[in-house]
C-alpha cells in the first residue's frame, strides 16, 4: 500500500504541473488530461519502475512527453481525425484568451517538429538542464544542444513568416 500512497501523493502534487506540461505539447486540455492520466496508469501497472522515489517526477515527465508524442502521431496519421472532445461545452480554461504576443509564439511553436518542441518546452518551461532533457528524451546532450539551437532558429523563422503573412488561422485559447 505504501506504493499506492506514494502515487496518490504524486498525483495530488504533480497532476496540475504535468497537465500544463502536456498542454504545451499537445495544445488541448482534454488530450493533456488524458495523457497525464495514462502516465499515472502506466506507473500503477509498473510499481517497480521507480526504485528511487525522488525520481518519480522525472519518470512521469518522460511518460507525459512520450504519450504526448504518441497522441500527436495518432492525430497526424489518422486520415479523418476529429478531436475526441469536440462536443464538450467550453470550460473556463477554454474561454481564457492568450495575449497576442504569446499567442504568436505558441502558434509558431506548434509548427516545429515534435522533438524540437519537446526540447524547447523542457528547457524553457520545465527549466531542465541539458543533461536532464537528454535523459528525459533518451538522446545525447549534444543532440539536445543542437536541437534546441535549431529549434530556436526555426521558431523565430516561423514567427516571422506568421507575422508577415498577416493571418494565423484560429485564435489561440
Amino acid at each position, binding site marked *: 500500500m505504501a506504493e499506492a500512497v506514494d502515487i496518490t501523493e504524486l498525483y495530488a502534487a504533480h497532476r496540475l504541473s504535468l497537465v500544463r506540461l502536456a498542454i504545451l505539447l499537445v495544445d488541448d486540455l482534454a488530450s493533456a488530461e488524458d495523457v497525464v492520466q495514462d502516465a499515472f496508469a502506466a506507473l500503477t501497472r509498473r510499481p517497480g519502475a521507480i526504485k528511487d522515489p525522488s525520481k518519480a517526477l522525472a519518470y512521469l515527465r518522460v511518460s507525459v512527453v512520450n*504519450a504526448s508524442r504518441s497522441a500527436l502521431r495518432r492525430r497526424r496519421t489518422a486520415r479523418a481525425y476529429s478531436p475526441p472532445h469536440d462536443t464538450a461545452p467550453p470550460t473556463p480554461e477554454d474561454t481564457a484568451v492568450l495575449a497576442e*504576443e504569446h499567442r504568436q509564439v505558441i502558434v509558431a511553436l506548434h509548427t516545429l*517538429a515534435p522533438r524540437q518542441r519537446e526540447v524547447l518546452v523542457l528547457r524553457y518551461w520545465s527549466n531542465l538542464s541539458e543533461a536532464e532533457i537528454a535523459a528525459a528524451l*533518451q538522446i545525447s546532450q549534444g543532440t539536445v544542444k543542437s536541437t534546441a539551437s535549431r529549434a530556436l532558429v526555426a521558431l523565430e523563422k516561423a514567427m516571422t513568416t506568421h507575422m508577415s503573412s498577416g493571418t494565423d488561422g484560429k485564435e489561440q485559447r
Partner: protein
Amino acid sequence: MSTDIEARLRDALAARADLVRPEDLEPLAPVVELRPRLSRQSPWVLLATAAVVLLVLGIVFQGVGGRERSDRLAPEPDEKIELQLPTDVGRDWKADDISTPARLDLDGDGTKEKVVFLGEPTKNFDGRTRLQTTLSSTGQEAFGIAELGTTIGTSALPPIDADGDGDQELVLLRDEAYSGPVTGGFPIVFDLRDGLLVEAVPDEPGLLIRGELVEEGSATEYYDKVRVGDFWIEDGTLHSSRSVASYARGAEMRFSPKAYVVDAWTWTLDDNGALRHGETECLVQSYDSTRECGLDPTDTFTYLPPERASYVGLGETVDLTDEAGYGFTARIEADADPSLVVNGFGASIRQPLEVPQPMLGTVQPTSIFFDGASLVITSATDPSVVQVFTQNDDRMVLMDPVGEIDLAADDGQQTWLTDNGAVLSALPADDGAWELWQWVMVSRTEIAALPWATVCIDDVDDPTAITAC
C-alpha cells in the same frame, strides 16, 4: 541564438501553461461512471479526502490498464544496434547523366542540401554509390555509402522525418528481385549523424520489402504462394505493408484480388539510429487506393469472372480476327470424323477431334495462350468434356492437364470458358463454398490450374453467378 526569442518563448510558455488552473481540471468521477477516457461532461465533484482519492485512483488505473496504447507509455530499454559508419571512399567516382541529385534539409536549418550520387565504376554497374553533400549550416562536407544494386540512374525517394527532430532523412531504393510482375526492393534510410550520412538499421527489415514474398512450404510443381509487400512515403512518414493472405503465383501471373487486406506499419527512427516499426494496423489496399479496414475486413473480388462464353457446333465458323486482320478463324467440320479446322497465323490446320458432337468455344482462351491460335472444345452430349488446343506452327496441340485438379467438368466440378478468355474451374469446398481455380499454360504441351479464391456460387447451374463468401 537570440536571447530575445528565448525570453519571449519562456514568457509565452508560462502564460500558456498558466491558462490551465486547478479548477479547469476534470474532477475525478465515481467508480460507476468511469470510462476509458475522461469525459468533459462529467458532472461529479472532487473527492475530498486522500483516502478516497487513493481508492478511486486505484480503480481508475486498473480500469485504464487494459488499454493497449498505454503500454507504449513507459520508456523502453535501449536495444543495442550496430550502425555501420561509411568509409570515405569514392571521392573520384562520377555521377551518371541520368542520376538526379536529391534536395532535402539534412541538417534542419531550413535550407535544403543538394546530395549528389557518385557511382563506383564497375563492369556491370553494380558497385557502391557515394552520397555527397555540403551542409548549409556548417559548410562542411557530409557523405555516406550506399549499396543500391545498381549505380545507374540513382534518384532519391521523397525525404522523411522519421525521428521528428525537424531535419529530414534521405531515402533511397535498393533494387532487389523480390518479385515477378511487381517492382521489387526496399527503402534505405540515411540519417545525418555526426557529419556522416549513416544508414539506419531496421528492426525487422523484412517488413519493408516491396514485392512478392514466397510463403515457406507453399511451393508446388506449378505455383507457389506469395504475400504482397509494399512500402510508401506519405507526408514525410515511411509506411509499409504486407498482405494478410497469400496468393498463387505461377506462369508469370499472380492471382490476387483487386483489393486485399494488409497489415501495415509506420516507421520511426530512434536516437540510436534504429528504424523501428510501430503497431500493426489494418488497411485495405488496391492498385490505386488505400483505406482503413472496416469491422470485418476481407479481400474484395470485384474482378469476378464475367459471363460464360458461348459455343457453336458443326459447320459454324468462329472469326477471331481483329480489325487489322490479325488472328484466325476456326470451325468444326465433319466428313467422317469431326475435325477442328483453323486458318490463320500463316497456317491452315486440320485437327481430328475425338469428342462426340464437339462444340467450339467462340472466345479464344487468351489467358492460356495468345501467341497463335488457341481454342476450347466441349461436347453437346457430354458436358464434362473440356479440351484446350494451342497452335504450334502448323498443328494444333491438345493440351495435357497436369497439376492438382482435372480439367473435366464432372464429380461436382464446374469448368467453363469465360467471355474474356479465361478457363476456370470451381470445386465444391466446405460449407457450401467453392474453390475457384484458373488454368494457365505451364509448358508447350501442358496446362495447370492455379488456386484463385474461395467463393460462393449462388446457382450451381450458372457458375458465373459468383460472390465473395
